[in-house]
């Protein structure tokens, strides 16, 4: 079997399993998985920049929040219906990532991390500053009546799950397609050796900017979807910890792998869920696990699977 058929089979197979789980999982895990799929979409967005382009951003929460508020504010203040509101969220993320990318990409390495962190902090404080519209740190509810998409009530558990799966499938297949095509291969080349890529005649800045925009837009789609499916938008989602989470998920799952973000998000979610039942120091458990994984599986879970078992994994 060719590598393409194997990889396609694996990824489509995962989506089919997730679809089947809609009717098989008990209520608690059904709800969790819907949430995990949306957060994994966020991690997929992060992975485009970190895993495939080699740019470590510490400010991705600003894109997630741009999507969430782009959707939430248009629903709350302009009375938009969910479909155009989600598009507004993605549009907000796209514009923000274009501007931030344009400015932040003048720096590299540690400076890029710091610049993205500062931009994210600026976005967080902007949300607080315009508290009259955003309700600042408290946030606001997106009411049940505003969460009906084309006649489908997204507050229903099944509809929510299927909507989450749809968004996750779009993000997964889009990145799958991306890394197999010219643009994706070029950003991977930039990650491996930026100078050589430039020497070969590629416009490195434009490709990196493209990666920031794709990454930011996917993150914004996840943010808009999260707000819509779970009925809340708040400044917490723009805070620094929500910039760190996708980094952890991707590191755990395997940077530069298509399935890594999903595996990392799933692993981390249940690690916290289960360990918080045992101790209040559950973030310590998460931290120790991360240290152990970094020591013994530096490429993350799926990275190790690729290195040891399936070298054809994208």
């Amino acid at each position, binding site marked *: 079997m060719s590598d393409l058929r194997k990889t396609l089979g694996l990824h489509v197979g995962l989506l089919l399993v997730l679809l089947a789980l809609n009717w098989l999982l*008990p*209520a*608690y895990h059904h*709800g*969790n998985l819907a*949430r995990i799929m949306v957060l994994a979409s966020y991690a997929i967005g992060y992975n485009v920049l970190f895993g495939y382009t080699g740019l470590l951003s510490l400010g991705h929460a600003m894109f997630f929040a741009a999507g969430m508020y782009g959707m939430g504010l248009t629903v709350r203040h302009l009375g938009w219906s969910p479909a155009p509101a989600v598009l507004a969220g993605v549009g907000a993320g796209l514009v923000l990532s274009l501007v931030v990318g344009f400015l932040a990409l003048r720096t590299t390495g540690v400076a890029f991390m710091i610049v993205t962190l500062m931009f994210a902090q600026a976005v967080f*404080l902007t949300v*607080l*500053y315009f*508290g*009259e519209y955003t*309700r*600042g*740190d*408290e*946030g*606001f*509810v*997106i009411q*049940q009546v505003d969460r009906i998409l084309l006649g489908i009530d997204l*507050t229903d558990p099944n509809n929510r799950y299927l909507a989450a799966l749809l968004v996750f499938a779009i993000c997964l297949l889009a990145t799958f397609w991306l890394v197999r095509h010219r643009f994706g291969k070029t950003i991977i080349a930039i990650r491996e050796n930026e100078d050589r890529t430039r020497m070969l005649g590629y416009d490195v800045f434009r490709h990196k900017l493209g990666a920031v925009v794709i990454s930011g837009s996917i993150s914004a789609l996840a943010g808009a979807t999260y707000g819509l499916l*779970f*009925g*809340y938008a*708040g*400044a*917490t*989602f723009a805070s620094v910890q929500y910039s760190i989470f996708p980094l952890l998920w991707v590191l755990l799952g395997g940077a530069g792998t298509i399935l890594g973000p999903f595996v990392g998000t799933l692993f981390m979610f249940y690690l*916290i*869920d289960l360990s*918080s*039942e045992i101790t*209040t120091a*559950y*973030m310590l458990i998460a931290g120790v696990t991360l240290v152990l994984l970094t020591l013994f599986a530096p490429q993350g879970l799926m990275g190790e699977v690729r290195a040891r078992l399936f070298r054809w994994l994208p």
Partner: protein
Amino acid sequence: MSNRKEFSNSRRKALKTIGLGAGSAAVGASLPLWARYAEAQSSAPIKVGFQAHKTGIGAAYGRWYERTTNAAAKVINDAGGINGRPLEIVLEDDGTDPKRGAEVVEKFATQHECDVAYGTLFSHVVIGSAPRAGELKLPYFVVSEGHHVASGMLNRYTLQPGITDVKSQVAAMAPFVSDNLGKKVTMIFPDFAFGHDHRDFFSAAIEAQGGEVVAKIAIPPTESSFTKYFPKIPRDTEVIYHVMVGPAVLTFVKELGEFFGPSRPEIFGFIDSLEAVDINSPGLEFLDGTYFWEGNPRYAQDNQSEFDKAYRAAVGVDNNGASVSDPTDVSTYAHMFGCWETLHVIKAGMEASGYSGAGDRAKLIEAVEAMSDLPHSHAHPQGAKLFNGKTHQVFGHQYITRVTDGKLKLAHTTSIEDTLYPDEVDYTTQAF
């Protein structure tokens, strides 16, 4: 000999137990299915999911909310539980985070199969969790003092019957401030939603009293030094109203003292900033003679009620508002009574509705909505309350204390009428 006696005794006991067990099993097997189910139902505990801020920014409050909750549960269980069933507290840490908060509510509903969820303090966690509680049709009793419930933002399944909201607290302060401290007020508040609520509600309330807010000084949430803001305080200010929160409050008070020296205007603040902080901490000397809003007076007062006495003893708080086992462990006394009172409202609601299981959740909410006067009692040690079933919000007395000789002494108690405002929502019109 004695050994043998013990043995035969225990053997007889064992036989008796086995016999009884077999007998009851036989009876059980002979019962129709519904009756066996009813039997199991009647003795199974009522599960209250406690969404606790064990970690994160709310941890100091969370620690005391947990102690109060456990004390109230013990009192309720010692008195026979709820409808003859024991009350079980199922605690989950929400990390004071709205995302985790919503997940915890889902966990209560679908994994722990709790009867109700309860106990959330921080507004962003309440607002992030309430939509899920509504969708899962899980009654959600918050202890938050936010205006979110009464503003109509939430849903029929979310109620706040054990603590008053910030809008009524702030509005009730205006008559006292304008009559006793002064009419020209400068407000210093954190530049986020909690501070904005104070700014908006108090400005309106003091104007209604013929006073005015002469300056509104918003402090950015990342600020750690405040000296540069104090020159903005107008010279004709008669009263400074402050509601700073978080660890920077000690610096804030110290710098305010250095700025004014011995001649200062009157100062009025909300104790929220100094909950779980000893009022005699170094740097807080400047607060001597200033006034505070307290939801419930931290120091036992001269007119202490027998209900406060019993409540204080049950939770383990001494007359100075600190833990009886550690005088440096100061409680969040102005807020935590809300946990005690809310659990008692849940009990009263379940008993009034004949609650027997998840199918009766709507009946429970209707029973709580039907409540009105909640008299000063062991169930309501903070004082008498008035519950508004339409807005799902309770109203009650507010206390103003003055820092005197290192203690907070009661200076004024508002009436319940002072705290009322027109309804902004009628949740009873929403379908279950």
